């Protein structure tokens, strides 16, 4: 801290000096002060910039997942192909597999593009449609057999390359190395877009649908895994809240100062910092290998996440219990209530808003957790069917939103990446809603003692 500005004789320079002018040293010190302040502000700015770029990346890459390209086609549902007997017996119609529908779609495509000049051969036309187009058509026919024999307008799912082209994800250069689609297809698509037979519409199937196989990103949806997450959250809520509150009440109100209590406290604070993947190993070993609960089931995921969330809930619940002033307890004890009554009748209700806030935040944390779910088998591709009912919702193999997103991120296809980002938007919307509810709860019931 010594400095050249110090005069040779160590005279106290401040004596008799005017305050109105900054001396050289003060100038330097104030400059250092400004720099330091700027570092702080800079750090916050950088942090917020990271936040903005993260959100920007999510919105930018994720929003296209919410629209999907469809091709509108007039398909002639020939009776001789779909219902040879002509008696509209639903079981016989069901016997016709998707292979029976493919020629119909191919025919419809040829008809639709008849007056467009294109280099695409008739055989290659089907590449603009999703591989699941025939299955979708079949489902609609089975749902409504009366359509057979007529020529009906259907909106069929376009292939992911076509979809990507309309969204700007796929360019003509990309297609040079791609055997799934040619540039000639794109010219055709351009014309069809002008004609209005190819269009992008809002993608309900993404929000409500099930995961699809690796070759059909255009058909993949997050709906089933959303349900998986929902059932898991039910388990977490109904286990973690009561257990967490009970444990907190014991520790905060009843526990004597002894080794056992210390042991519990140490355990809780350490469990709060144990990596989530370790809880995954615990779930795998304890619930699946030891207790033989069904693999990949939301109930196992819920149990695992319960154990992971408990410390969070206990810590926040204890804080809210602690915030209730002792005078309330004394007042209850003073009118002859038992300790238990004073806690359950007075302290707990007063602490409830804080407890709920902490629980919601714990749930939000559990909702976004991925790693433990992978270990207990809740991986994405399992989420391909809706559960049949509530019991199967808990017990049948399913996935969860973050695991589904991970699964899509692993499939090296930009069309799946788009779905992954889209899934993140939905996940974050859920988290945001939960956090806003927590904040509102806190605002509404906040009490200053």
């Amino acid at each position: 801290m010594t400095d050249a500005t110090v005069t040779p004789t160590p005279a106290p320079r401040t004596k008799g000096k005017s305050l109105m002018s900054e001396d050289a040293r003060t100038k330097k010190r104030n400059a250092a002060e400004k720099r330091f302040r700027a570092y702080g502000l800079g750090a916050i700015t950088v942090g917020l910039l990271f936040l903005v770029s993260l959100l920007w990346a999510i919105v930018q890459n994720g929003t296209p997942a919410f629209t999907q390209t469809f091709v509108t086609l007039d398909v002639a549902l020939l009776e001789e192909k779909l219902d040879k007997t002509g008696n509209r017996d639903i079981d016989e119609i069901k016997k016709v597999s998707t292979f029976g529908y493919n020629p119909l779609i191919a025919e419809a495509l040829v008809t639709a593009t008849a007056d467009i000049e294109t280099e695409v051969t008739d055989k290659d036309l089907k590449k603009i449609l999703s591989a699941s187009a025939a299955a979708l058509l079949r489902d609609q026919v089975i749902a409504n057999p009366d359509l057979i024999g007529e020529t009906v307008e259907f909106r069929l799912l376009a292939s992911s390359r076509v979809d990507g082209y309309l969204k700007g994800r796929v360019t003509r250069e990309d297609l040079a190395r791609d055997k799934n689609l040619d540039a000639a297809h794109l010219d055709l698509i351009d014309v069809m877009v002008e004609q209005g037979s190819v269009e992008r519409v809002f993608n309900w199937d993404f929000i409500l649908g099930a995961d699809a196989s690796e070759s059909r990103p255009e058909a993949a949806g997050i709906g089933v895994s959303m349900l998986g997450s929902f059932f898991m959250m039910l388990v977490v809520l109904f286990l973690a809240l009561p257990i967490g509150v009970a444990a907190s009440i014991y520790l905060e109100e009843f526990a004597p100062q002894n080794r056992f209590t210390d042991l519990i406290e140490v355990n809780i604070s350490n469990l709060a910092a144990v990596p989530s993947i370790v809880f995954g190993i615990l779930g795998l070993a304890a619930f699946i290998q030891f207790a033989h609960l069904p693999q990949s089931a939301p109930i196992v995921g819920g149990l695992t996440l319960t154990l992971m969330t408990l410390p969070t809930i206990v810590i926040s619940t204890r804080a809210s219990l602690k915030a209730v002033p002792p005078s309330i307890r004394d007042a209850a004890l003073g009118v002859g209530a038992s300790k238990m009554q004073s806690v359950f009748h007075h302290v707990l209700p007063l602490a409830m808003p804080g407890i709920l806030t902490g629980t919601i935040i714990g749930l939000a944390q559990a909702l976004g957790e991925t790693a433990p779910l992978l270990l207990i088998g809740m991986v994405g591709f399992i989420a391909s069917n809706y559960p049949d009912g509530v019991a199967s919702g808990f017990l049948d193999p399913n996935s969860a939103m973050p695991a589904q997103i991970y699964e899509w991120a692993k499939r090296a296809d930009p069309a799946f990446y788009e779905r992954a980002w889209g899934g993140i938007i939905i996940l974050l919307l859920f988290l945001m809603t939960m956090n806003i509810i927590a904040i509102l709860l806190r605002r509404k019931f906040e009490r200053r003692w």
Partner: protein
Amino acid sequence: MEDHYRMDRTMSTAQDTKISARNVQVHYADNHAIKDVNVEIGDKTVTAFIGPSGCGKSTFLRCLNRMNDTIDICRVGGDILIDGEDIYDPKVDPVQLRAKVGMVFQKPNPFPKSIYDNVAYGPKIHGLAANKAELDQIVERALRRGAIWDEVKDRLHAPGTGLSGGQQQRLCIARAVATEPEVLLMDEPCSALDPIATAQVEELIDELRQNYAVVIVTHSMQQAARVSQKTAFFHLGNLVEYDDTDQIFTNPKDPRTESYISGRIG
């Protein structure tokens, strides 16, 4: 160094005005804490501020070195001049001001550093020493002035927080003195100390008067009577009476002062 101080003494007579406050107003948000205070504080004098709790005496003291700047909701109006310069002038840097107007707080607050580093902190940041030897000198002199040198000279590198309360407070005084201030503000410096430590600090204050203008806020009227030459009585944010200490305690002019001195309010 000694010459320097002697020179200073010859330069100013004991009754020179060091600080003059004119129409000072302080607001904490909506609370009008100091109302129109006018006071002239002399150099080389101990001036005591007395009054009941919440009367504004500490607030006013903190105006004198702009410690109130660190509180967001505090606004100060009026003029406070030190050596004829308005310390609230935008050109004045509070950092320079505080080097000139040192402060000792109610509770001893040594930094969690060694005794030496506590005292050396001020000289270091203000660049008062060119080298280590000089710094050593400054520290020793300050500790001597703080009347604590003999007690700590063998353990200068022990933590300051390990001292007793009275020693800590004298260390804080030494720390304040080390930056060569011209005014020393003391905010109830003995309220956290036992009677023996209090006596030591009071003795020290009396010695400090040789070199500084000392302003002390105190709760204890006996203390004010013992250490100060001038006394100001504050009540509800007003400066009720300001006079020689003898005058205030023997013959107060204002009935409120009289009630306070005789123990009826406070």
